[in-house]
């Protein structure tokens, strides 16, 4: 587990250095994810240690957003003032963008799909 965590941090660090060095518009960890993905293609897949650590970390990805989400308490005043347009905009555009992208992708890949199993999301 420590070896796998070290590897993840090393890729994050490389990502951060590249983003700052090349002035890229995306965050370091996203670049690190792209680099690790390429490394996995070259290595033909992750080892058991890396796979298990990643699964463990991603199982509770929700937890990692809790501290940032609690920051909502800093903005109660602003939210009280512009509550209606902000929430309407978030609600309409979130549902709309889920629907539009899923319908479009679904229509384009129809035919060459292997039937998805599993129940509703």
């Amino acid at each position, binding site marked *: 587990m420590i070896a796998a965590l070290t590897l*993840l*941090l090393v*890729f*994050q660090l490389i*990502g951060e250095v590249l983003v700052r060095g090349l002035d890229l*518009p995306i965050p370091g*960890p*996203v670049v*690190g*994810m792209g680099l690790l*993905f390429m*490394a996995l*293609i070259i290595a033909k*897949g992750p080892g058991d240690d*890396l796979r298990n*650590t*990643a699964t463990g*970390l*991603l199982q*509770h*990805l*929700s*937890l*990692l*957003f*809790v501290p*940032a989400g*609690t*920051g*909502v*308490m*800093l*903005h109660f005043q*602003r939210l009280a003032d*512009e509550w*209606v*347009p*902000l*929430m*309407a*905009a*978030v609600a*309409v*555009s*979130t*549902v*709309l*963008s*889920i*629907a*539009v*992208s899923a*319908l*479009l*992708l679904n229509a*384009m890949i129809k035919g060459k799909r292997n039937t*998805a199993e*599993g129940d*509703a*999301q």
Partner: protein
Amino acid sequence: MNPDIGEIWVYLSTTPLLGLTLTLVAYQAAWWLYQRADQHPLLNPVLIAVSILVGILWLTGTDYNTYFDGAQFVHFLLGPATVALAIPLYAQWQRLKAMLLPILLTLVVGSLTAALSAVGVAALLGASRESMMSLAPKSVTTPVAMGIAEGLGGLPSLTAVLVIATGILGAVSARFVYQALRIDDHAVRGFGIGLAAHGIGTARAFQVSEQAGAFAALAMGLNALITALTLPWILPWLTRLF
């Protein structure tokens, strides 16, 4: 208050232990509830845990920065967790290769839909210009969204809140949208929720299936890239038209 308890409180409020432990306990409670309800999307664990924490901090008069001194250790793990998304993504590599062009097209359309519909609705309802610019990148993962908002003349800290609200709303509503549209393919379901609702949507997708999670991670990463590259050009041009 009993003086002993007062002393203990003074001690606890100066160490990161309390903020960190509170975050984990609130999340455990939220997770327990979520499991009891068969992972029903309305009981989103981020939403419940945040509500519990805001309640506790408000009742005890603790300010957010004191809390974050402890919670930052959890927050830090977002970095390595984002890197770890490469592993489920690799597991979908064969399927991914087969649908590369549809994915890229969907990405461009979905990214524009998310940003422009948000700005459009806010404009119709009379939101301030600052709020509209803060809203535009709300479907993108937090650090990128804050950078984009700043460039557009929005408020980065307001953007952070709107990004989290978008993520929770996407995680809560996706199942109902997909049921209404009769979309069953977990790759498509994952891609839609990851594009519209970034990391919180991706977390929800992983709870449903590994395939949905991998495609959500892919959509989240690509949407961050494409929105960062296009929105700073498109939005100022559009606002000049109106």
